[in-house]
């Protein structure tokens, strides 16, 4: 118990001091995860919406895969990306391994199925409601796609936030492809792992508090924007 209290006090001191080392770690975490989520979202939204609207035989197969991949284990994704980016791997010549770029790739792969699967479900539900009306106004399936994505923007925000939560919180993928190099690829989760193993529980806990605080803060802002939109334009 004494250990725990001491860790909290130390964490508080670190937060008050806002150590530049910590700021660098927090900054890199945000940069990597936000970039990964943006890239993942740009692919996942059209992909999910296409799967929702397209009708082809065997359509259930990609949907099942997508749904299953929502829970893709980060370490496995990390390992796969590692194999691709390692010097002997197919993309080895780009020298991306142990750089933030590699971490962005791994996290983008991790969040893509999650956002795409939630998008697919959202758009399919919306299409059931909208399809005839939009068709009667002369819209083709292809034309419905951007319209339905915009109509689903409030629900889709939640999906993108879930993706961000998954990215910023995961440690398995970034530690493998990033390597937790101080000042280069060290992010909050990998730093927490390291500090805990070194016995620096205060430092670890301080980072943990910042991590949770940031996640809550970003969610709060996004939900406030969504709530404003919902009130303005109706549910």
């Amino acid at each position: 118990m004494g250990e725990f209290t001491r860790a909290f006090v130390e964490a508080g001191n670190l937060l008050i001091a806002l150590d530049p080392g910590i700021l660098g770690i927090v900054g890199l975490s945000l940069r990597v995860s936000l970039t990964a989520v943006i890239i993942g979202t740009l692919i996942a939204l059209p992909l999910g919406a296409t799967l929702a609207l397209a009708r082809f035989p065997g359509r259930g197969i990609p949907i099942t895969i997508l749904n299953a991949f929502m829970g893709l284990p980060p370490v496995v994704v990390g390992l796969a990306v590692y194999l691709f980016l390692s010097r002997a791997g197919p993309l080895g010549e780009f020298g991306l391994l142990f750089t933030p770029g590699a971490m962005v790739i791994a996290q983008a792969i991790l969040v893509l199925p999650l956002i795409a699967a939630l998008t697919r479900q959202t758009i399919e539900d919306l299409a059931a409601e909208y399809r005839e009306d939009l068709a009667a106004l002369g819209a083709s399936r292809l034309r419905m796609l951007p319209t339905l994505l915009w109509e689903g923007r409030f629900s889709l925000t939640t999906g993108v936030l879930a993706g961000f939560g998954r990215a910023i919180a995961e440690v398995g993928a970034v530690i493998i492809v990033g390597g937790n190099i101080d000042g280069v690829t060290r992010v909050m989760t990998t730093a927490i792992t390291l500090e805990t193993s070194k016995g620096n529980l205060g430092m670890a806990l301080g980072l943990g508090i910042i991590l949770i605080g940031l996640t809550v803060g970003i969610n709060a802002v996004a939900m406030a924007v969504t709530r404003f939109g919902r009130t303005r334009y109706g549910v």
Partner: protein
Amino acid sequence: MKARDDTLFPAVLEDVGFAAGGHQLLTGITASLGRVPVTVLLGPNGAGKTLLLRICRGLLTPTRGTVRWGNAGTGQLGVRVGYVPQHPVMLRRSVEANVNWALALAGVPRRRRGEAARNALAAVRLEGFARAGARRLSGGERQRLAIARAWSQRPAALLLDEPAAHQDPAATTSIEEAIETVRDAGTRIILCTHDLNQARRLADEVMFMHNGRMLEKTSGSVFFERPQSEEAARFVAGELLV
């Protein structure tokens, strides 16, 4: 403003039937529609009016028979025939943006959409609501917005499904005025209703339906004075047809 596309009329239905789940919902409907400004599909609930309207717009494929609009099949109508369902879906954006979306689909260039949207909203007396969220409108206002949205595309015909069902007299009046404005601007109206009085007020021609069949099709005045079929006579007399 495009001139009305007269090549679509009349819409010819030949032996149209529709069956689903082992039930015959429409049987042997042969008729030509849209020769007059307002055609009313009249009949009690369950007569198959909505089904027939959706088939005419090409949203459903009949299991028997064919529908042609002049030389065009129902798949080639584009924005030339509009359709407003009983519960139209409002896009989650402003009233004006709902009309703009329809205008974009009709190929109206961006710089002309503002004025076109204002005209369409003025026609249904919604000009004061341009900036409001479309989903915040009342039922009657939604119906008028849906009419404006469809009409902004300048269709040759507009199909309306129970445009004033469950509305109070004031809302019904506003909706019927919107329909009359559209009619007077030259768009042919084909609407279905179970409301005898609405049919009386609007119909130039009545097509009476019961249990998936067309029982008669005559001019409005003849229908209400001397209905030909026994069912229509009972319906006009205010009896409940089941």
